[in-house]
């Protein structure tokens, strides 16, 4: 008897790392960083909304934002933005059939630059605080 069900987990297969090659990992990280940045955008709008509640509400948030937990969160935003942007450049070049045979090396480069950039930002942010 023939089953008609599409043998996949649909959307969830985007994030399934089993058996993935470098390009697949680049895809997964691109999706995760995009979701993270989208979530951050809403969080940012929520925080800006504090301004409408008056100076006390905003000052209260600014005081809370000085905790190391917020700094780590900001660092994650920076890492996600760096990776998403750099991988975006890779994808644009690839889409014009530039460097496709080197797409893995381009991914590793994007990853390396993300790590370096994040470390530089981390050093500055934690030193400043």
């Amino acid at each position, binding site marked *: *008897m*023939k*089953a*008609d*069900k*599409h*043998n*996949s*987990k*649909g*959307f969830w*297969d*985007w994030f*399934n790392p*089993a*058996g*993935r*090659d*470098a*390009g*697949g990992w*680049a*895809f997964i990280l*691109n999706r995760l960083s995009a979701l993270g940045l989208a979530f951050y955008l809403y969080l940012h709008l929520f925080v800006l909304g504090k301004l409408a509640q008056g100076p006390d509400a905003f000052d209260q948030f600014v005081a809370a934002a000085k905790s190391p937990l917020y700094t780590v969160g900001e660092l994650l935003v920076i890492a996600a933005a760096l990776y998403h942007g750099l991988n975006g450049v890779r*994808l644009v070049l*690839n*889409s*014009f*059939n530039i460097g*496709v*045979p080197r*797409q*893995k090396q381009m991914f590793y480069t994007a990853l390396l630059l993300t790590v370096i950039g994040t470390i530089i930002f981390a050093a500055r942010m934690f030193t400043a605080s």
Partner: protein
Amino acid sequence: MWKITYRIRRQKGDEASHYDTFQVEVDPEEYVLDGIEKIWAFEDRSLTFRHACHHSTCGACGMRVNGVEKLTCITKIKDVTQDGGTLTVDPLRNFPVVSDLVVDLGPLYRKMEAVHAPPVHPLSMTPWEGEDIRPPKEVPTPPEGGEYIRLPDCLECGICISACPVAASDPDYLGPAPLAAIQIQGLEGHPELLALADSQQGVWRCHSAFECSAVCPSSVDPGWRIMDLRRQVTARRLKTIIG
């Protein structure tokens, strides 16, 4: 000889899937498909799987071995496990499961038909040169009045579709093999394929995971071909705008 465990996903009809395990004695130089055939021959005659040529021409024996898409007739056991190890074998993803390791490749075949993918190519149209299709460097003298033909590199095994994360969430996506087939034929010679390539389910649906190229058991490199097709489509669009 090695003693290994095959862990095979079973599913008949609409029943829930489960794994059956089989202890098999194999020569590590044998192929994954050989072990599956031994299980069928000596352990469980109800196990269903597809195979035919045993030398990577028919594309029938595509499965997932330890989570990775493989043509099991050319995947050596020693390359995917060790003595005393376990081999997990699943059917391909993104196709309906007919029974056990057999999937219905009909959706792929219909898409290949839609893009008029020829089963054989004239030798002058060898596929690895892209838009500027040229014959290979050493072309044998064709028979009088005719031209040699060759099988295209694509085996239509469906492995690329199984590995594609986009095909997982969009069954209507043309997919790597059909898009590669358009690129192989070339938009210059086949402008009727432009609409399909430039459609929502065409080159723009690809999200550049390049998993298709990573698992392709032949030398199609669908990821590269999709990017080349995207470049061709973009160039044509620009030409239309500029005039």
